[in-house]
């Protein structure tokens, strides 16, 4: 069973409410669910839509074909009618059929007018619940959790009236579905914020920028329950420099932005590198350059992120592949930033950030915070040197005031072991080498190889980084169902680039193909330059819309297989 609902309308019509509530109802009902969003960068008008794909199998991304088209305005039908399946259904407010396909009409505004005119969207929720044969009690519970007391009763009534106003069409969708008590339904921005909070994040300073703001919203809402401060900075320069100050004072600090903000933060990423100040930067990508497509998705920041700031210094870039990976990466990045005293960029994107999916509850058993700070009884705690030369390049880190009578000096100029400004060539060379050694250790101890899906004997290897994994995973299943011998190698750690597994799989008989959302094949360039392997093809997309599995499948057949 694979069923796709599309809910569309203008900005300001309360689409997000319908999507949030329906998502929870479907999740609690027990479906596997993948919810994705397509927004325009405006507050009113235009056309926005959300898709809720459900199945009894695990889902990795969206699909195009629509089973149930919920149109909050007529335009939604015009835009999406071509994707509506032959046996698909339109649910719309109005009085007459708008298509030659089955149309259910609902007098949502008339119903809402009696109860609460602002609640048209809840009438739709009730109607969808009935059409899909979902449990009205579950819907009531979700409404109960969602609305404040003063409008709760209205919304329950709106739900029930909507439910009664249509007939049930799909009476066996939940035939083989069981409630998933050990699962979560979570979006990417929340998952990343949640992971960082779990990792002992104390300070998040950021400037609002789509599509990264969800991280800040999530964390800001936790300030009353956790020892966490969220500060809205005056600009991205302040945002990252504040985070560096937080980190210098000894607390875990992070900032988040999108590509344009990352550009502004670049000098300070170098500052973090040179001063060896741990910091985590979330870059939730959108198409660029400049303002680009503010609310849409892309993977165009890869080479920019790994080449952040001038000259050489150790930096790590991680591109989590899905919502679960975002949680664990938020946690892990804070530990690694502390261990190696480096900046770490987490590359998410609008597709990862705004999509929600069901996944196993996060496992807290093995999550341990490791600050790697100097202890007071360490021999190096006397005559403290912030940049002491060591075997592995890592100097024990102290924060100001931690060691009685000792000082902590950090400097954006090249410096000596105490942090004092120097210009001599000998110290310069030793310091550059000291910093570089940290990356060698990171590669040896902490770099994670990509995850491989597929058989040993393959003709083609799809290479993904970050969120392309989901749709590529769907395409991988479709291609293998058709007996094409295709493997999938999904990278999360992208810089330094892990090479071992790729080198094991790559051979003259295997054609390498990257699948990525930028126009030049940045991952292809990276793999070529880092491994000297010949990546022959790339399936690229750069219109700001996420891939679907079917799309990658079709293009794989056309662009890769048919072209030999």
């Amino acid at each position, binding site marked *: 069973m694979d069923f796709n609902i599309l809910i569309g309308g203008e900005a300001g019509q309360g689409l997000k409410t319908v999507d949030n509530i329906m998502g929870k109802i479907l999740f609690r009902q027990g479906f596997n669910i993948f919810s994705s969003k397509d927004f325009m960068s405006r507050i009113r008008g235009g056309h926005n839509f959300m898709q809720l794909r459900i199945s009894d199998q695990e889902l990795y991304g969206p699909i195009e074909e629509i089973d149930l088209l919920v149109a909050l305005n007529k335009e939604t039908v015009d835009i999406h009618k071509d994707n509506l399946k032959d046996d698909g259904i339109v649910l719309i407010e109005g009085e007459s059929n708008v298509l030659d396909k089955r149309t259910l009409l609902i007098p949502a505004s008339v119903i809402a007018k009696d109860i609460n005119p602002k609640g048209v969207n809840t009438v739709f929720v009730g109607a969808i619940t009935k059409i899909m044969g979902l449990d009205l009690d579950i819907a009531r519970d979700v409404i109960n959790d969602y609305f404040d007391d003063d409008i709760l009763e209205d919304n329950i009534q709106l739900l029930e009236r909507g439910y009664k106003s249509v007939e049930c069409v799909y009476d066996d969708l939940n035939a083989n579905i069981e409630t998933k008590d050990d699962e979560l339904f979570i979006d990417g921005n929340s998952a990343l914020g949640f992971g960082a909070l779990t990792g002992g994040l104390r300070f998040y300073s950021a400037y609002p920028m789509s599509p990264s703001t969800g991280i800040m919203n999530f964390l800001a809402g936790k300030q009353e329950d956790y020892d966490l401060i969220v500060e809205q900075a*005056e600009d991205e320069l*302040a945002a990252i420099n504040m985070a560096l100050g937080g980190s210098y*004072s000894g607390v875990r600090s992070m900032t988040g932005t999108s590509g344009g903000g990352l550009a502004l933060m670049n000098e300070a990423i170098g500052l973090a590198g040179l001063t060896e100040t741990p910091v985590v930067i979330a870059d939730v990508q959108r198409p660029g350059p400049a303002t680009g497509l503010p609310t849409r998705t892309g993977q165009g920041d890869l080479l920019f992120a790994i080449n952040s700031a001038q000259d050489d210094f150790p930096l790590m870039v991680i591109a989590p592949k899905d919502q679960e990976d975002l949680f664990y990466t938020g946690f892990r990045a804070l530990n690694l930033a502390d261990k190696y005293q480096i900046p770490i960029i987490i590359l998410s994107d609008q597709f990862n950030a705004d999509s929600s999916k069901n996944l196993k509850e996060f496992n807290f058993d093995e999550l341990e*915070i490791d600050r790697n700070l100097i202890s007071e009884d360490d021999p190096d705690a006397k005559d403290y040197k912030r940049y002491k030369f060591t075997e592995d390049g890592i100097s024990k880190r102290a924060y100001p005031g931690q060691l009685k009578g000792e000082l902590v000096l*950090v400097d954006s100029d090249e410096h000596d072991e105490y942090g004092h400004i120097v210009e001599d060539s000998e110290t310069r060379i030793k310091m550059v080498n000291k910093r570089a050694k940290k990356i060698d250790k990171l590669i040896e101890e902490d770099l994670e190889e990509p995850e491989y899906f597929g058989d040993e004997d393959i003709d083609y290897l799809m290479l993904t980084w970050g969120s392309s994994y989901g749709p590529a995973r769907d395409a991988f299943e479709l291609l293998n169902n058709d007996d094409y011998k295709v493997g999938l190698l999904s990278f999360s750690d992208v810089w330094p680039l892990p090479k071992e597994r790729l080198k094991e799989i790559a051979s003259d008989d295997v054609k390498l193909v990257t699948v990525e959302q930028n126009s030049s094949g940045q991952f292809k360039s990276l793999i070529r330059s880092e491994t000297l392997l010949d990546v022959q093809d790339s399936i690229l997309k750069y219109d700001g819309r996420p891939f679907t599995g079917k799309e990658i499948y079709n293009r794989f057949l056309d662009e890769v297989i048919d072209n030999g």
Partner: protein
Amino acid sequence: MAKNTDFNITEETAWCPGCGNFPLRKALSSALKELDIDADQVAMFTGIGQAAKMPHYINLNGFNGLHGRSFPPAVGTKVGNHKLKVIVESGDGCTYGEGGNHILHNIRRNPDVTHLVHNNQIYGLTKGQASPTSEEYIQTGIQIKGTTAAPFHPVQFAVGMGASFVARSFVGDQDHLKDMIKKAMNHRGYALIDILQPCVSFNKINTYKWYSERVYKLDNSYDPENINEAFNKSREWGDNIPIGVIYKNEQKIFRDRLVTNDDQPLVEKDFDPQEAKKIMKEFK
């Protein structure tokens, strides 16, 4: 108990002989020594420029960051450990030019920091270009017929913004400068001291003599808590330049407005990841 090396000054500096930074540093060192604090509890945040090298030349914790960004890291440190005494220090170019947006918004935040600005009305480290506070008539290798913008008046700006503490001092008057620094350090909230400090290498107009002939100390008849009087006073510049506390107004500080602000510094608080586990309920 402070160590006898606390706030000592170094032998070597990269400053020109006769630079106004020397007397400024001397006043700062004396002021800090006279306050009952240990050097390990004081952190100085600077940007880039000759003034910004201060934490290398005086014994305290230091974060010598990027040009224009002396202020933001100081705010971050105040979040992590509000018990540290924090000084933001840099020159007029770094503070009022490259970092202009940060002073504007930190006056609004009002964090508990002391802000020392070395104002020599010229760029020193880049060898003599106009700074935001340069007079229009100053001629340099770049501004060959004078500047193309009117000068920025930091004291007038800060009073106009209703900053919590605004003072001006002059390195030619050690006792006055030391007194201002102590007052600023003891003030709860943002405290700006715009410090007139000649650049002997590149500013041949605003010299020791030029400043000495013009500055005058505010006496007891002046009420720095009266905003209207302060605003008028802040506009005095040219032949008569007032030094002293121009405006003072205790108000809510940044920390008072934070959601988490109990007495224990964040840096001293332990955290167990298990405490976050309950958040999973929201996603059920």
